[in-house]
């Protein structure tokens, strides 16, 4: 039931509200629109014309250049290798942090022990910290492990600093499963792993979706860790994109920059469009008690 059914608002006022919402939508969409139309225009049209105008000489060329041939740093590789880097970081880090989070969440929700709330609070605190506080020791430890500037090092860092969120997601979900189901299984002689497999896992589809989508979005969009612990060949997409758009040598090829930025945004944007429900659940479960 919406509030509308209780308070009466006349049609004219509602129409004004609707126009206002439409205007707000335009504000949110304009940066995306500007990038999109200008990613298909030749540079002369961008510099000489209106940023809002549709392209006169439409071309996919700038997308191709951003992907495969433009200079990133000193290498004329396009963004492609850094897309692959990000993928190579995202897949194992998401898998590892989600699986560990599922087990940890199960324990914290269902196997009480002395101080379990404190442990949960300590883990939870860890997922919100400003990562600047761990940058120096992380660099040192990655160096000691021989993982400086490697994909492996970034996988490790993202897995560890993702554990707080994944544990939170699973713990809150498993907390809500009726106790009777677990007790019945225990009476039938099921043990820890079996209860997890037979009772928890079949109910875990949505929370796996939340965890995977949240972690994928966060790690794909990461800049700070990538910039700190990657190097010229292992940097992930957002670091490469920033190098592309902020390089100060030569003419600024805005069309290629726009194409590159949209390309980098595309994976998480598509996830959002097709699984927004789970993304929102991830956003709110850290905030509103799940």
């Amino acid at each position: 039931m919406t509030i509308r059914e209780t308070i009466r608002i006349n049609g004219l006022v509602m129409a004004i509200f609707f126009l206002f919402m439409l205007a707000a939508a335009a504000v949110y969409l304009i940066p995306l629109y500007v990038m999109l139309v200008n990613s298909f225009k030749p540079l002369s049209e961008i510099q000489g014309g209106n940023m809002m105008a549709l392209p006169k000489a439409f071309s996919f060329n700038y997308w191709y250049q951003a992907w495969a041939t433009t200079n990133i740093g000193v290498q004329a590789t396009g963004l492609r290798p850094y897309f692959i880097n990000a993928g190579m970081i995202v897949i194992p880090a998401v898998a590892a942090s989600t699986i560990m989070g599922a087990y940890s969440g199960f324990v914290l929700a269902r196997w009480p022990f002395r101080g379990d709330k404190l442990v949960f609070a300590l883990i939870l605190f860890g997922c919100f910290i400003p990562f600047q506080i761990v940058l120096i020791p992380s660099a040192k430890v990655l160096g000691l492990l021989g993982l400086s500037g490697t994909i492996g090092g970034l996988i490790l860092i993202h897995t560890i600093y993702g554990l707080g969120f994944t544990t939170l997601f699973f713990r809150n979900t498993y907390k809500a499963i009726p106790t009777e189901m677990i007790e019945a299984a225990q009476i039938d002689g099921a043990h820890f792993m079996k209860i997890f497999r037979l009772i928890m896992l079949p109910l875990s589809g949505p929370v796996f979706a939340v965890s995977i989508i949240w972690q994928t979005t966060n790690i794909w969009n990461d800049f700070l860790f990538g910039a700190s612990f990657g190097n010229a060949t292992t940097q992930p997409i957002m670091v490469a994109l920033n190098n592309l758009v902020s390089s100060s040598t030569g003419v600024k090829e805005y069309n290629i920059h726009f194409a590159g930025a949209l390309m980098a945004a595309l994976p998480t944007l598509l996830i959002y469009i097709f699984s927004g429900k789970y993304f929102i659940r991830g956003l709110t479960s850290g905030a509103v008690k799940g």
Partner: protein
Amino acid sequence: MRSKARKHITKDELTARAVLLPTVILTLVFVYGFIIFTIYISLSASKMMPSLTWVGIDNYIRMFKLSHWMTALKNFGIFGVLYIGLSAAIGLFLAILLDLSKKAEAIFRPIYLYPMAISFIVTGTAWKWFLDPGIGLERIVRSWGFAAFRFDWIKNSEFAIYTVAIAAIWQVSGYIMIIFLAGLRAVPHELIESAVVDGAPIWKVYTKVVIPQLRTAFLSAFVILGHMAIKSYDLVIALTNGGPGRASELPSTFMYSYTFGRNQMGIGASSAVFMMVIFAMIIIPYLRHQVKEE
């Protein structure tokens, strides 16, 4: 009690603890151990490499004498107030509008929220172009015939931090809207109905009845915005890179440049500890409240 509890520990409980152990150890080392390590570095003579030579609070004293740090702090004040205040106001307002119509919510909610799914590097880049007087907004408005229109904040030392705030508010306000929308749905209808029956005008129903019921949502919104404000980093890098000059530096960009760019690791660590303290002041009371409530 203790020995009794130990006697009754089952094999399953043991398995459970073993399964939780890796997460606990990783958290203790990589979160709490590292925090302590950084605090130690902030009290040491570390320059390019970590050093164990103790110098007490020298780095903090030197940091607060740096004009860069004072600029970063002042910017954080301006940015923090605008970011928290305006994002909460816009988020609440949009939530109230969307709450009035299911159809409007279905259409507009995904549009208002999508920036949260995109990297700050991408949105920062988009806003950089859009705010660039040479090709962006200023030029468009001029082309409409307003030849005297000026909007060059991004190139202006005094106003660059406001452009960071604009882009950041644009990106986060949809998220805050979601928080308020959930809060609005939980307001008891009897309260609203009785206000309506009493003949209160709509705006009064909101200011006197609905908004005071949103205390939890406000608390969540302020905690989210507060901790995101202190962590803001990528957006500044992509939008202004701390410039022009160092005019739009925040504590986060200061930390990075002093630690990794200028080889002043002790001072960099001090700024990280400062950020951590601000963060803890925002989040610890909230976490305590959350965990206790269960």
